[in-house]
Structures are given as structure tokens and as C-alpha cells.
């Protein structure tokens, strides 16, 4: 059967929410036109031995623009995302000025339009992320914002958080929370425990996160709001979310690659590359995060990609800004730590946690699959067996704060297609 397909991705193993099958996939324009055997097209992309999956979706990326363009721009961050297999990212609002008004939302969306990744944005829950006054969530929802968060900090005031949830439930939007009780975490720079004792650094206990998880679960129950828990890092948090879900609450949660890969022992050399909020925790927490993702209690892997300039990361550990890069390493870390590690997660579940599940949480209809005729052609081709060593270059990001330098991983994105356009070919960004 002849077809007018522009591109045929041949011989890959197609993985989406409905299952796995080996087949060809044909793209025309911005759509998938056919999935089957023996497809023809103007250009053939050989996907033998590879996975063909929906493009990955990152619920949590810091693109730094406007305000900190020396660390990252929307363009460079989107390129790093595309190289990591992402066709959609959600930008976090802790920019300068913060994304709490229609003007800034429009600016970010405008800057993201030509980018090699579909850039969506979150917006702040409170004006200026100051935790005092509600931001105009209705106006911003009308511009397409689906998820609101004060990320960088959590909303501290219980009453304000309740009001925000009640208001949000009327709008059908989701509130995402950076769970950190500032009275317990103020002035700290790592996890409180044996390592913080040895290193002489002020630490925050797991309870600094867990108390807010507990509060928000209770308030979600009270208000009926949809709540998403960002970058979960402790075993206690995972347990509480599991219980809340078992009780029927519609909460969702994400975890970042560094929280299922690295522990607080990494801080031993005082390299601020390993400083992050929430901090790297103990071995038991890392195991719980991995298990939580494998069991589905934690719905999604979100990178919390947080670029910082080398000058900033060279400051003394307690003064350096928190955060690490993640977009180009998340998939490989997930395969290496979760599939090959003790959690023994299935590869398809990893793909799910990185594509259709976050796409659903973010309300992105064109991302996450399923890969069928008529669907938007947002997909990536992954070589699951490719072994590589993470270097210190930082990839396409403007920054280089990579905590995985020298780590051997497996799984690499070969091609990424954004609405039918091949933005990454053989691991190289095309624009």
C-alpha cells in the first residue's frame, strides 16, 4: 500500500499506554498517519533495536528566562529538553519577574513558540510567590495555564493554602506544591542526619517536607482540590501519598532523577553541585522513591532541571543556590537506576512515568500518546542498549552543574519529533 508519508520510522518497538508492538510508524505534516508493517515514506528513519515512544513530558523545568539568561534561556533549555527526548516542558514560575501575571505568561509562551520543544508554563499561586496574596489564577487559566505553583518555595500559610485550593477547585486547575516548611528548613543546606553532623552543615529533617505533604493531603480532602506534589524526596512522603491515594484522594506526585540516584553522602566534598532543595536524602529515602515510582504511587518523573552558572555553584556550600541539571540525563538515569536497579521497574512503566502520566497531569492533549493514526506526531526514538558516560559539559544547557559526571548509564535518545518535525537526529539538535 503506497502512502504519502513524509517520514517512516521503521522497525522500532512502539511503546505507549496501550502496550508494546513492533511496527513501522508513518508521519505526515504534524500527524501520525499510520502504524503498521511495511510502511513507505519519502524519508526512512531506521529504528531497529530502538523504542519508539510518545515524546517525554517534563512537569518541572526551570528555564530561567526572564531574568537569569546567563544560566539558561527558554531556547537553550528547550534544546536540552529535545535532546533528552522531551517534546513538552512545563516552565516553573520562579523567574525575575515571577510568572504571576498575564504579561509574563504571554512573554514566556511567545519566547517558547520557536523553540525545539513545546514550552508550556506554570504560574505562581501567590503574587510574587510571596505567599501572601492569591495571584490572578482565573485570568492566567484563560491563557492556558493548567498548573499553579510557588515552586522554589512552598505556600507556608495554612489559611492561604486552603483558600487557594478552594478557589482552584472552582477553576478546574491543579495546584502543585514545593513541600518545604520554611521554619524547619531556613538556613539549612542539606539533609539533616549523619552526614550533616559530620560535615558541620546545617540540615533540614525529612519532616520539613513531610509536614507540608501531610497538611496538603488534609486540605485537599477538605476542599476537593486537585493537588500535585512536586519533587518528593522522603520515604515518609511516599507512604503518606500511598495512603491518601488508597483513601481515594485524587492527588498526584512526581520525583526527580537525583532523588532516586544520589544520597546526602555526595555532599562530602562540599561541591555545591550536589546542593538542591529538597536536599539529597538518605539511602532508605532513595530506595523508597525508586519503589514509589515502580509501584505507581509516585506518578511521574520530573527533572526539576535547575541551571546555575559556575560562579554561583562555586560559592561556599551554604551560600550556593540549590539545583542541578536533568533534562538530558533523566531517561538514562531512569533506565539505569529504576529498571536495572533493585526497584526492577518495567521499561514501559518508566516511559509511562515520563510521558503519558505527566501529560495527563498537565492536561496536554497532544503529548503522551497513544501513538495511533491521527495523533499529533510528538515522539522520540530511544536506543535502550546504548551505554554512555555522563560528562561535565552540561550538554546543550548554558550551565554545567551536573552531579552525575563520570557516571555510566544506559539508554539514549536518538531522535525526537516535535509535531512531525525531526528536532533531534542521531543525538544532534537540528536547530
Amino acid at each position, binding site marked *: 500500500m503506497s502512502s504519502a508519508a513524509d517520514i517512516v520510522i521503521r522497525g522500532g518497538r512502539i511503546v505507549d499506554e496501550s502496550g508494546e508492538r513492533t511496527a513501522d510508524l508513518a508521519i505526515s505534516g504534524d500527524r501520525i498517519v499510520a502504524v503498521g508493517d511495511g510502511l513507505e515514506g519519502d524519508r526512512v528513519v531506521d529504528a531497529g533495536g530502538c523504542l519508539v515512544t510518545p515524546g517525554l513530558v517534563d512537569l518541572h523545568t526551570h528555564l530561567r528566562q526572564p531574568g537569569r539568561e546567563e544560566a539558561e534561556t527558554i531556547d537553550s533549555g528547550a534544546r536540552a529538553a529535545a535532546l533528552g527526548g522531551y517534546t513538552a516542558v512545563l516552565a516553573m514560575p520562579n523567574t525575575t519577574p515571577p510568572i504571576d501575571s498575564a504579561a509574563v505568561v504571554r512573554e514566556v509562551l511567545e519566547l517558547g513558540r520557536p523553540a525545539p520543544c513545546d514550552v508550556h508554563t506554570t504560574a505562581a499561586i501567590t503574587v510574587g510567590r510571596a505567599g501572601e496574596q492569591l495571584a490572578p489564577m482565573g485570568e492566567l487559566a484563560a491563557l492556558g495555564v493548567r498548573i499553579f505553583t510557588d515552586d522554589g518555595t512552598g505556600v507556608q500559610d495554612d489559611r492561604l493554602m486552603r483558600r487557594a485550593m478552594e478557589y482552584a477547585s472552582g477553576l478546574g486547575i491543579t495546584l502543585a506544591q514545593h513541600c518545604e516548611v520554611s521554619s524547619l528548613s531556613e538556613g539549612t543546606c542539606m539533609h*539533616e*542526619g*549523619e*552526614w*550533616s*553532623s*559530620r*560535615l*558541620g*552543615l546545617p*540540615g533540614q*529533617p525529612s519532616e520539613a517536607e513531610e509536614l507540608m505533604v501531610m497538611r496538603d493531603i488534609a486540605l485537599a480532602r477538605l476542599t476537593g482540590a486537585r493537588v500535585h506534589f512536586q519533587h518528593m524526596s522522603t520515604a515518609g512522603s511516599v507512604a503518606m501519598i500511598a495512603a491518601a491515594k488508597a483513601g481515594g484522594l485524587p492527588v498526584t506526585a512526581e520525583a526527580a532523577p537525583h532523588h532516586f540516584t544520589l544520597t546526602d553522602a555526595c555532599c562530602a*566534598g*562540599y*561541591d555545591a*553541585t550536589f546542593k538542591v532543595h529538597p536536599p539529597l536524602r538518605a539511602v532508605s529515602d532513595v530506595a523508597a522513591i525508586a519503589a514509589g515510582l515502580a509501584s505507581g504511587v509516585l506518578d511521574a518523573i520530573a527533572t526539576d532541571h535547575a541551571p546555575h552558572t*559556575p*560562579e554561583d*555553584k*562555586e*560559592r*561556599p*556550600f*551554604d*551560600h550556593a543556590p540549590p539545583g542541578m541539571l536533568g533534562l538530558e540525563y533523566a531517561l538514562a538515569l531512569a533506565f539505569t537506576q529504576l529498571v536495572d536497579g533493585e526497584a526492577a521497574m518495567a521499561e514501559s512503566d518508566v516511559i509511562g512515568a515520563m510521558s503519558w502520566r505527566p501529560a495527563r497531569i498537565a492536561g496536554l492533549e497532544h503529548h503522551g500518546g497513544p501513538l495511533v493514526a491521527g495523533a499529533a506526531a510528538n515522539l522520540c526514538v530511544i536506543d535502550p542498549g546504548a551505554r554512555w558516560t555522563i560528562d*561535565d559539559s552540561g550538554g546543550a544547557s548554558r550551565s*554545567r*552543574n551536573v552531579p552525575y*559526571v*563520570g557516571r555510566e548509564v544506559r539508554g539514549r535518545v536518538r531522535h525526537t519529533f516535535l509535531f512531525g518535525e525531526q528536532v533531534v537526529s542521531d543525538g544532534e539538535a537540528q536547530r
Partner: protein
Amino acid sequence: MTARLRNAATPVDTSRHLLSVGDLDRDQIAELLDLTDTFVEVGQRSIPKVPALRGRTVVSLFFEDSTRTRLSFDTAAKRLSADTMSFGVSSSSVNKGESVRDTIETIEAMGIDAVIVRHSSSGVPAQIARWTDAVVVNAGDGWHQHPTQALLDAYTARSHLGDLEGRSIAIVGDVKHSRVARSNIEMFTALGAHVTLVAPPTLLPPDTTAWDVSVSHELDPVLPRIDVCYLLRMQSERMTEALIPTLREYTAGFGLTSERADRLGAEALIMHPGPMNRGVEIASEVAERPNAVITEQVANGVAVRMAVLFLLLGSGRHLTQVHEEAS
């Protein structure tokens, strides 16, 4: 000066530097303490100077002010005939934009062999060691370590008690925020002594299982059986942080009062890193007792620092080699 790739993960060769007591093993500590004897003798001469580090430049980079420690290091370097330079960098000038890395690279461009670093943030000496070819000596970083203090404390204790194996040492006070305490815990346990931390729970590190120590929340039961009562400075800032209710309550529970000092063993030593808050952690009268060796600690500081500088710069071999050849 070799150009260094910014953000490169250069591992630090801890044997070239003195960053933490934890980097030293028992043999290396013994070597340093024995070497100190030599420099005590030098200090007693009418010309207390040897040409061992002639032509070397030793720079003090103190981001946190400390006249006493800086003077002690300066004297030590000068007595070894090294040239010295002193950069008293106030933390505000660093906050104004010149980074620690820029500062050290500027200094190094002038040609230096060793840099003595004190900073209010833990880990800065370790970071500096990644950015310079010079030898780095930690003169106190945040809450983390003050290795030369621990060395002079061990030297002083040893000079009175002999071998510290099996001895019992109590470290009393604000251990949580004390770099002197962390260094001394590691120093005394490495030498085979048993260390007990004495403090209210709020002034102890969150997880004391990081070390092989005992913990007591009361000072009185500990007094009769210890060979050294090491008192830490109690800072009044701790009250505003809700760590202790009042200084008076602290003294009542943990201060070495005259009455408590009477209950120490006859041979027990009273030590303090200085400067003392008389009337708070130690009664004024107690500081003058014959078994209070605080001024000796200070006096030994110069000889200890000479030993450290000589071993790291002048002996032609650094700390791990000492260990390898001894075995």
C-alpha cells in the same frame, strides 16, 4: 599556574593539605606531635628561627576575623623563615562580587606555596584546594574542622598525661556548632582515647552515631572519671536561636564551677580553646588552677603550626608518604 576548567570535578589529594583531622591516621598524627617537640625546642632558643622554609611564601586568607589564630600561624611561618602575607578579607567584600575562587586565583598569581584559610562556611578550604596548586591549611571552616587546634590540644594533653590510649575525655558544651569539637572528637578517638560529649540535646549534632562517642546530658556524673575536661565556648547567640533558655541555666547545668572542678580527679586536665567566657562555661577561679592548661595550649600552638607547615612544605614529603614509609 595551570588553567583550570571551571566546574571540573578535580578530586582533592588530601595528603597534600591539612583540611580535616579525619584525613589523618594515627601514625600521621604521632609524626606531627613528635615533630612538634623539635619546634618547641626551637621556640626556646634565643633566636627562635630556622631557615627551613626560606624563600617560601605562606599566605593567610582569613574570611573570618581571628587575631590570635592568624598571629599564631604568622609567627610559625616566620620562625621557619618563610615570607608571609596576610589577606584579612571581610565577608562583605566577597559578597560584593569577588568570589572566593577569584580571590585565591589573584593571590596565587603572585606566587604562593601555602594558603592558610579560615571561613565562616564549612568546606571552603576543601573547595579552595580544588582551585589552587598551593598547599591548603584549614584554620577553621564553619562548624566543620579546626585541625591545628586539635593537634595543639592533643600535644598539650599528651605532654601531661603521656599516651592518650584508654584515657577518658569529656567535651562539654555547644558541640553542634563547634569545629573545635568535631576536630577533637576525631583527634582523641584516633589516639585511642574515649570521648564523651556532654551537652543538652539542642547543642549536640543531629546524629552523634557519625562518631564512636558516648553522650551524656549531665556533666556531674561524668566528672570523677575523666582525664580531660574540655570546655567549649558558649555563645550568647544560641539563646536567640531557642537552643538554650538562658546562659544562667546553661552554667547551672554544664558550667565548670569551682564546686564541680573540685570533683575532678587530681590529675585531670581542664582545657578550653579560648577565648573563655569566664563565669559561663568556666568559673574565673577555675581557669587559674594549676590543672587548667589553657595558656599552655596557646603557647603550643606556634610549635604545632610550625610542625604542620614544615611537614607540608619543607620536609620533601607529605602526610601519606610518612605513613607509607613508616609501615
